[in-house]
């Protein structure tokens, strides 16, 4: 019988049994904050899986099938639903209208919100009351805002009455394919500008006053201060506002459903309304799910580009 090597003999210690590795791992884990962190994150992760990832996976799966309403049968369709959508002139118009809507509404809302925030950030008497008035429309439920504006837009509504008083001709607003989308943008901006202004005012108040004082000593004017101090220091807040505004605008639904149902001539048929109409009004859920997937891909692409552009130049 050969004696095993011993530590005292300077011979390398025998390999510890495998259970030893596990105990070490367990010891390390006990010292590491990872398990606690995971435990704290678990509810959020669970919700993310249940409410976001699982439905998304379900949408991708359903979009690859075709469910026939007349025969109640379901068959494998592959990319057929996507091909149907992308080759449909109506859906291509929906994409074009949604793109035009975003190209107008996001710069308008963010630009005006920035302008209003810059004015509201000034510490002048009575500014609290002015802020309240700017933020007030945010409290109006979307459906109430849409219906209120719908009444104002009517042929004999208050806006045409004001135009008439000014000697201008009546405007068709929601019944014109040239004006309806702009009319919807005005409704959404009425609440949107106040909402985004709140974030920008908070961002402006975080900029140290010393920077402006130093610039003033150096003789910088308002525009130079805005360009050299305000905008660079507001970059992160602006990035959030632009991205969040883009996402919320893509998901716009209530004014279209309440006032135009996508018309006239599809000029206000935004993607969320089209998706709702296909899925719930017409009952073609597989096509609706394909539209959800396409919407998500577009949204991820747009947001990624925005983040990239807005983070350019950051150290």
């Amino acid at each position, binding site marked *: 019988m050969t004696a095993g090597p011993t530590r005292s003999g300077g011979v390398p210690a025998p390999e510890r049994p495998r259970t030893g590795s596990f105990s070490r791992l367990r010891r390390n884990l006990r010292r590491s904050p990872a398990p606690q962190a995971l435990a704290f994150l678990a509810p959020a992760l669970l919700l993310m899986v249940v409410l976001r990832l699982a439905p998304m996976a379900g949408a991708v799966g359903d979009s690859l099938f075709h469910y026939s309403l007349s025969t109640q049968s379901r068959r494998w369709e592959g990319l057929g639903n996507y091909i149907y959508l992308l080759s449909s002139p109506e859906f291509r118009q929906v994409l074009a209208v949604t793109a035009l809507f975003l190209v107008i509404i996001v710069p308008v809302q963010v630009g005006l919100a920035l302008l209003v925030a810059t004015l509201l950030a000034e510490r002048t008497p009575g500014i609290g009351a002015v802020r309240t008035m700017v933020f007030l429309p945010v409290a109006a439920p979307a459906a109430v805002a849409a219906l209120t504006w719908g009444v104002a837009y009517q042929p004999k509504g208050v806006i045409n009455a004001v135009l008439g008083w000014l000697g201008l001709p009546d405007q068709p607003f929601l019944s014109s394919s040239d004006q309806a989308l702009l009319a919807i943008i005005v409704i959404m901006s009425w609440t949107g500008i106040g909402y985004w202004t709140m974030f920008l005012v908070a961002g402006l108040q975080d900029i140290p006053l010393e920077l402006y004082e130093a610039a003033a000593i150096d003789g910088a004017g308002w525009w130079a201060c805005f360009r050299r101090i305000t905008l660079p220091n507001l970059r992160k807040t602006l990035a959030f506002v632009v991205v969040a505004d883009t996402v919320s605008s893509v998901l716009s639904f209530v004014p279209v459903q309440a006032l135009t149902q996508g*018309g006239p*001539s599809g000029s206000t048929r935004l993607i969320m309304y089209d998706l709702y109409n296909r899925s719930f009004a017409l009952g073609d859920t597989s096509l609706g799910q394909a539209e959800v997937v396409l919407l998500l891909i577009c949204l991820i692409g747009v947001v990624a580009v925005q983040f990239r552009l807005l983070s350019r130049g950051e150290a």
Partner: protein
Amino acid sequence: MTRHRIGAGLALAGALTLTGCAASDGDPTPPTGGKVEITFVGTDPAEDLAPLLEAFMAEREDIAVNYENIPFDQYDNVIQQRVGGGDAGIDVLLVDAGAAAAYASRGLIVDLTDDLAEAQASSIPAAVEQSWWQDKLWALPFWTSATYLFTNKDLVEAAGLEPPTAAGERWTWEEVVDAAGRAQAAGAEYGLLFEQVDLYYQMQPLVESAGGGSGAKGADLLTADLANPGWIEALEWYGQLFADGVSPRGVDANQTANLFAAGQAAFFIGGPWAIYTLTEPERPIDYTVAANPYFKGGSPAMATGSWSIAVSSSSDAAEAAHAFVRFASLTTPGNAASVARIIIPPTNQAAFDDFIARIDQADAPHTAGMGELTLSELRQAAVNRPNTVGFTQLTDVVGRASSDIRNGSAVEPTLRRAQAELQSLWDRL
């Protein structure tokens, strides 16, 4: 200890869940004082249908009926989502004219063919046919409808014209537009208003009068036919009304009856239920009721058909639901009670006869002769909606095309695009 508490909590939650499941599976309709409870859904306000529910519950003390109102423009979606999703919270539902095939094909309503003989014996034939699809009866008759030409007597007489009457000759659309223009010249704000602007119900008689058909053809009524000469002629006329200012753009269906009642329009096309709105103002207008107009050289056509009543396929109290449906449709007291608080023709023959006798007095003297007019219109001019499984798509596409034309889109290209889109949607069925 903590672990024990968590374990006990989980056990309690599990027990409660199991208890809930057991209750849900074993006793699906919670009894209300020993009664089976069922839910009936429709688009009318609860108070309008209260007499029907009261009459039924007085007869069947073992069944309690609740009524739920769903807004009209969300009705199909809600039914599809709830009944299609197996929601046992809907036992009885109303089915609009033309929608029976679509609901049946989606498995939302159950076969009621066993009641066919009784339905044929007790009800107006057209109301039974409305729910007949693939040699089965899917819903029992409930209400039907008729539309009329309402005329503001003062506005038309101010233009030097004699208004049309119930007993007089049927006017053509050309005569109506001419008179509407003259009335506007004499001070009327609007010439002609439609109650259901752009909706298929309102558009179909125009197109049928011009010889365009329902828009659905073929053996299975799944071939789109929206761009034929009849459709183009009728929609050209419709678009011109709004282009010329005879009818206003930007005024939706919810407002037109009120505008007519307020004395702002010379003519109004609407159903008998509009009489309620006409009696509301403090100073009601002086009006006449006449037959639905038709195109010169075309045929008379009037929108008809209304809700039928069906048993939901997701009901877990189907027997009680069926009893209620039979009472509401096949019995004279039940069907008559359904219209006790609203002005709409019931389909049970005896209840219908009573309605015809009553309607002349609904807002006398304006409504004098309306009963006889209704009977003759249902015989001569009524056109029912096509019973196609693609009815939802048909109404959606026609509604949008009509709206676009109303707002100034060129008629023929719009109808060609609508036809192609509808066919593409139907091909997916």
